[in-house]
C-alpha cells in the first residue's frame, strides 16, 4: 500500500501545481501554513530526555542536570531528591499525605501490560529481567533490557520485532497522579508508594488491595546519554524542544487527548444536560477499610467521574483546598460530573452512540466546543488522522495474523486518542465527520500535496511508544519516516511545523515543577519537539507550556478566538520568574509555543 502511495507521489510531484486543491488558505500570522501534530504515548520528559545533554551545551532541567543520576544512568550525588518513600495512610484522600520511611529497595518492576509480538500479554508478576534490589529511585531500563536499535520505516514486522524491548506499564490515573505529584511536584517521593498501594483501582479486573500488580517500573528511564532514543536526541539537537511542557490533566490518555482537542473536559450528560452518572462510576479515592491507600471506588470498570464543584464529593476537598490557598478557580461547574479517567468515547467508529449503563464503560456524546469546529468555521482545513481507523491501515495485520478487520482494529486502534469521535457536533455533521481519517489517508495526502492546514496524527498502538504495548524505538521509526517524507517535499517543508509530543507521561516518574492550574492539572512534564525550518535550532525552551499551548499556537496562527468562555486557552502567556524561568509569575499561565520558533 505504501509502495503504491509512494509511486503515486512521485508521479504527482512531477506535475507543476499539485499543492492545495482546497480553498485558498486563510492568511496566517506566521510563515507556518501547515501544522502537523504527532502524538505518541505515555513518556514523561525525564523518562525519555532524563540524561539528555544538548549538543550545543544549552541548559536543560532533567535527572542528569539535577545530579539525580549520572551519565551512565547510575545514581548521582543528589539521588536522594528522587528517592522513594512510603506514605502514611490518611482517613480521607490526600494529595499530600504524611511521609513514612524510605524504601530500602525499589519494589521489583513488574510485567504489567507487557505484550508479546502477537499482541498477547507476556504474563504478570515481577519482571525477571530487572533486579529486585535496585536503589529506591530512578533506574536506567536499558541496563537490563536492551534498547531496540532497529531502524526502518514503521511496519508491523519491525514494530513487532522490537517488542522484546517492552517493559512494564505503570498506573496513570487521575487521583493516583495527583497523589504522586502533590502540590507542584515539590517532593516527588511518593510515586512508587501510590502506584503500589492504589494500582489501577479495584474496579479493574484482577486488581486487589493485596496485589495491585504494580512495582517500581515507573522509576525506569531511557538513558539518552548512553545512546537510547538516538533519533529523538538528534531532533532535539537540530530543532527546538521544551523541557517545561506538560500533560494538561493528571492521569491517562482520554482526558489529555480531549484537552488537546478542546482545552476542556468531558462530563456526564444526557442530551447535553449535566447529570449524575451511574453511581458505581463515581470516583471515591478515600482508602477502603483496612487498606493503606487502596481507593474505595476507582477503576476502568467503575469509578471514573468526579463532581468536583462539591467539596463533599469523595476526593475533591484535598485538591480544592490547594486551589483555595492559591486563590485559583477550580474550573468545575456545579452538578457536573467530569470524566477524569479513561472511558470509551460516546460514538463508535460507525457513528452509533454507545450504550450507557452501570456495566457499560463509555461516556456520553459531548457538546464541548473543539478546535475542529473552530477551524472549520474559519475556513481552515483540518483532519484528525488515526492509525487503524480504516481498512487500508490494517492490511499487514489482517494478512499476517489472519485477522478480520474488526479483530485487527482492536489491536491497533487507540480509541482514547480519538477525542473528536466523542463530539456530537463532529459525529453528526457529515462534512466534519469525514475529516476523521486513517493513517493511510495521511500518507496519501502527504504524497499528493493535499495535506490540510492542521493535521493531528495518532499512530497505531504498536508504534506509539507506550510502555508495555509498544517501544520508543518504534515511535522513533514512525517519526523518522514522517519527518523524512515532509522534508522531501520542499514546498510543504518550507512552511511546515511538525510538533511531536506524547499525550501524557504514563505514570512514569518526572522531577520537574508542575504549575497548579485548576482541579484537573497540570500534570507532569512530557517531551515536546518542534521540527520546522523556523524552529530555533538547538533551543531548549523553558517557557511553561502544556498541550493547550499547541491549541494557542494554532489559534494565533490562524487568528481564532478561544474555544469557549471557560476553555483553558483563555489563560495568559507566562511571564517568567527572573530567578526561575520555569515558573510563571502570573500563574495560572501557559505559553503559545511561539518561543520555540524564529520567524
Amino acid at each position, binding site marked *: 500500500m505504501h509502495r503504491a502511495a509512494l509511486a503515486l507521489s512521485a508521479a504527482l510531484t512531477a506535475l507543476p501545481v499539485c499543492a492545495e486543491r482546497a480553498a485558498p488558505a486563510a492568511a496566517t500570522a506566521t510563515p507556518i501554513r501547515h501544522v502537523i501534530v504527532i502524538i505518541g504515548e505515555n513518556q514523561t520528559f525525564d523518562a525519555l530526555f532524563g540524561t539528555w545533554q544538548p549538543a550545543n551545551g544549552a541548559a536543560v532541567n532533567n535527572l542528569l542536570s539535577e545530579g539525580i543520576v549520572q551519565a551512565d544512568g547510575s545514581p548521582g550525588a543528589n539521588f536522594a531528591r528522587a528517592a522513594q518513600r512510603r506514605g502514611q495512610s490518611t482517613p480521607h484522600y490526600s494529595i499530600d499525605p504524611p511521609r513514612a520511611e524510605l524504601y530500602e529497595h525499589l519494589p521489583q518492576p513488574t510485567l504489567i501490560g507487557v505484550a508479546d509480538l502477537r499482541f*498477547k500479554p507476556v504474563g504478570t508478576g515481577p519482571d525477571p529481567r530487572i533486579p529486585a534490589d535496585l536503589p529506591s529511585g530512578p533506574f536506567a531500563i536499558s541496563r537490563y533490557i536492551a534498547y531496540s536499535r532497529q531502524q526502518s520505516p514503521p511496519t508491523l514486522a519491525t514494530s513487532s520485532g522490537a517488542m522484546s524491548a517492552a517493559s512494564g*506499564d505503570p498506573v496513570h490515573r487521575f487521583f493516583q497522579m495527583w497523589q504522586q505529584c502533590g502540590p507542584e511536584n515539590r517532593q516527588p517521593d511518593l510515586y512508587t508508594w501510590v502506584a503500589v498501594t492504589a494500582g489501577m483501582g*479495584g474496579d479493574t479486573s484482577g486488581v486487589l*488491595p493485596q496485589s495491585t500488580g504494580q512495582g517500581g517500573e515507573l522509576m525506569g528511564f531511557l538513558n539518552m546519554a548512553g545512546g537510547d532514543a538516538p533519533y529523538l536526541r538528534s531532533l532535539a539537537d537540530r530543532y527546538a524542544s521544551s523541557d517545561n511542557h506538560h500533560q494538561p490533566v493528571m492521569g491517562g*490518555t482520554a482526558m489529555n487527548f480531549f484537552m488537546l482537542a478542546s482545552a476542556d473536559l468531558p462530563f456526564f450528560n444526557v442530551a447535553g444536560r449535566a447529570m449524575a452518572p451511574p453511581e458505581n462510576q463515581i470516583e471515591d479515592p478515600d482508602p477502603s477499610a483496612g487498606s493503606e491507600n487502596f481507593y474505595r471506588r476507582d477503576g476502568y*470498570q467503575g469509578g471514573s467521574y468526579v463532581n468536583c464543584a462539591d467539596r463533599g464529593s469523595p476526593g475533591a476537598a484535598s485538591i480544592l483546598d490547594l486551589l483555595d490557598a492559591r486563590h485559583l478557580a477550580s474550573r468545575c461547574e456545579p452538578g457536573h460530573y467530569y470524566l477524569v479517567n479513561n472511558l470509551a468515547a460516546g460514538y463508535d*467508529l460507525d457513528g452509533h452512540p*454507545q450504550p450507557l*449503563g452501570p456495566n457499560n464503560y463509555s461516556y456520553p456524546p459531548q457538546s464541548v466546543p473543539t478546535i475542529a469546529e473552530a477551524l472549520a468555521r474559519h475556513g481552515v482545513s483540518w483532519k484528525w488522522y488515526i492509525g487503524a481507523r480504516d481498512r487500508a491501515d490494517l492490511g499487514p495485520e489482517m494478512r499476517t495474523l489472519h485477522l478480520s478487520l474488526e479483530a485487527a482494529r482492536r489491536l491497533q486502534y487507540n480509541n482514547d486518542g480519538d477525542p473528536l469521535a466523542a463530539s456530537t457536533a463532529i459525529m453528526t455533521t457529515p462534512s466534519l465527520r469525514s475529516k476523521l481519517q486513517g493513517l493511510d489517508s495521511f500518507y496519501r495526502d502527504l504524497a499528493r500535496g493535499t495535506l490540510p492546514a492542521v493535521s493531528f496524527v495518532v499512530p497505531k498502538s504498536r508504534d506509539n511508544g507506550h510502555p508495555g504495548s509498544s517501544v520508543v524505538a518504534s515511535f522513533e521509526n514512525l517519526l523518522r519516516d514522517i519527518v523524512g517524507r515532509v522534508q522531501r517535499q520542499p514546498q510543504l517543508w518550507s512552511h511546515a511545523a511538525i510538533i511531536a509530543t506524547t499525550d501524557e507521561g504514563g505514570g512514569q516518574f518526572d522531577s520537574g515543577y508542575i504549575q497548579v492550574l485548576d482541579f484537573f492539572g497540570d500534570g507532569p512534564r512530557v517531551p515536546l519537539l518542534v521540527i520546522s525550518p523556523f524552529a530555533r535550532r538547538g533551543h531548549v525552551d523553558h517557557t511553561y507550556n502544556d498541550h493547550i499551548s499547541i491549541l494557542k499556537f494554532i489559534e494565533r496562527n490562524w487568528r481564532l478566538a478561544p474555544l469557549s468562555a471557560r476553555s483553558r486557552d483563555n489563560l495568559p502567556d507566562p511571564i517568567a520568574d527572573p530567578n526561575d524561568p520555569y515558573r510563571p509569575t502570573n500563574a495560572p499561565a501557559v505559553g503559545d509555543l511561539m518561543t520555540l520558533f524564529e520567524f
Partner: protein
Amino acid sequence: MRAPLVALCLSVAALAGQAPAVSDSRAPFSALAQLGRQVFFDPSLSASGQLSCASCHSPAHAYTSSSGGAAPRGGAALDQAPLRTVPSLRYLDHTPRFTRHFYIEHGEEREDEGPAGGFMLDGRVDSLHAQALLPWLDPAEMGNENLEALARRLRQASYAPLLRQLFGPALLEQPRPLAAAAALALERFEIEDPSFHPYSSRYDRFLAGESSLSEQEQRGLALFIDTRKGNCAECHPNTRGPGGRRPDFTDYAYRALGVPRNRELSANARADFFDLGLCGPRRADLRTETRYCGYFKTPTLRNSARRSRYFHNGRFATLEQVLEFYAERDSAPQRWYPSAHGRLRKFDDLPAIYRANVDRSDPPFGRARGDPPALSAAEITDLAAYLRTLDDAD
C-alpha cells in the same frame, strides 16, 4: 404501544421503593420478587399448560435444562424443537447492555473487544425483563400466540390478585403492560434470589483462601490461563472483576468458533438454513453486518460441567468432547467436519462466504492440519478437573 410501558416502568420503580403493604416485612424479597417466583414456576403461562420457566431452567440443575437432547421440545403440543440450547440463568446480573464496541482494560490500557453484552446468545435484548418475554412468545418454547394470549393466561393465574394489588386494576385489562409487569417481577426474582448467584463453587472458596485445589486441578488451572495452551482465560476471565467481585468467566463478547453443524436440530434439516447468531435469523438489526455472521456470545463457564449440551446448537454432549474440539479443530478437522466430493467441509454450520469470520488465530486454534493437538489427552483431563471446580455446591 410504547408509552404505557414506560409509564408502567416508572410506577413500578416507585412502588419498589415504598415496600407495598402486601409485602411481608420478614420476607427476604420485595413483593415484586415474590410475585416473580410464582410466575417463574407457573406452567399455566404456556400454550401446552405444561411448561414453566423452571421446566427448562431447573433450579436443581443450576437453572439449566435437566433433560437430555439438544433442546427440550415446546409449543402447544410439545412437538417443536427450539433452535438453540438452554442457557443457565445463573450469573447474568453483570451483563452489560449490547454494544458493537465493548471496552475492557488489558493491562493499563483498554481494548475494544468488539460486540459484547446483551441477553440471549445473540444479545438481542438488553435486560432480563425484556428477555423474559421471548420464551413466552416463542412458538417452540412456551408458545403463546401473542401478547393477548399471554395476558389471558396471566389474568387467570392464581397470583392475578397480587398483580392487581401491586399495579392497580386497570393493568389487567391491558395486555402489553400486564406482560411487562410479569416480566419485571421475573427480573426482580432473578436479581434478588441468591440461588441465581450463589458463588458457592470450590474455586470461589479457593479464591477466598478457604479451600485448596488438587494437584490435577492446579495443572488444569495453569493450562486454562496459559496463552499457548488452553488460553481459556482470554474469553473466560478467571480473575476477580471490578470492585473485587468474583470472576464472571465470560467477557460477554462474541466470537465465531466454527462449531460443527448439529443435524439433530429440525431447523437444520433444510440445507440452506443457518443459525448465524448476531446476524440472524433471530436477531434482526445486524443482518447486513456480515462480518458478525456466526458470532455467538461467550457463556460463563460456571456450572459448565453440569450442562447436558454445549454450544449454541448443542452439538456436543460432554465437557471432554468440547475440550477435544478446541484442541483438535484445526489439527484434525476431519474428526469434526463432513467431507463432500473428497473435500472437507470445515465450518460446515456456516455458509462458505462467512467462514472467514471464524477465529483462526487465538490458541488453542491456529494449528496446521496434522500438527499435534493443542492439548494432550492428559491435559484435557486436567482442564476438565479444573472446570469442575467451577460447579456450585448445590
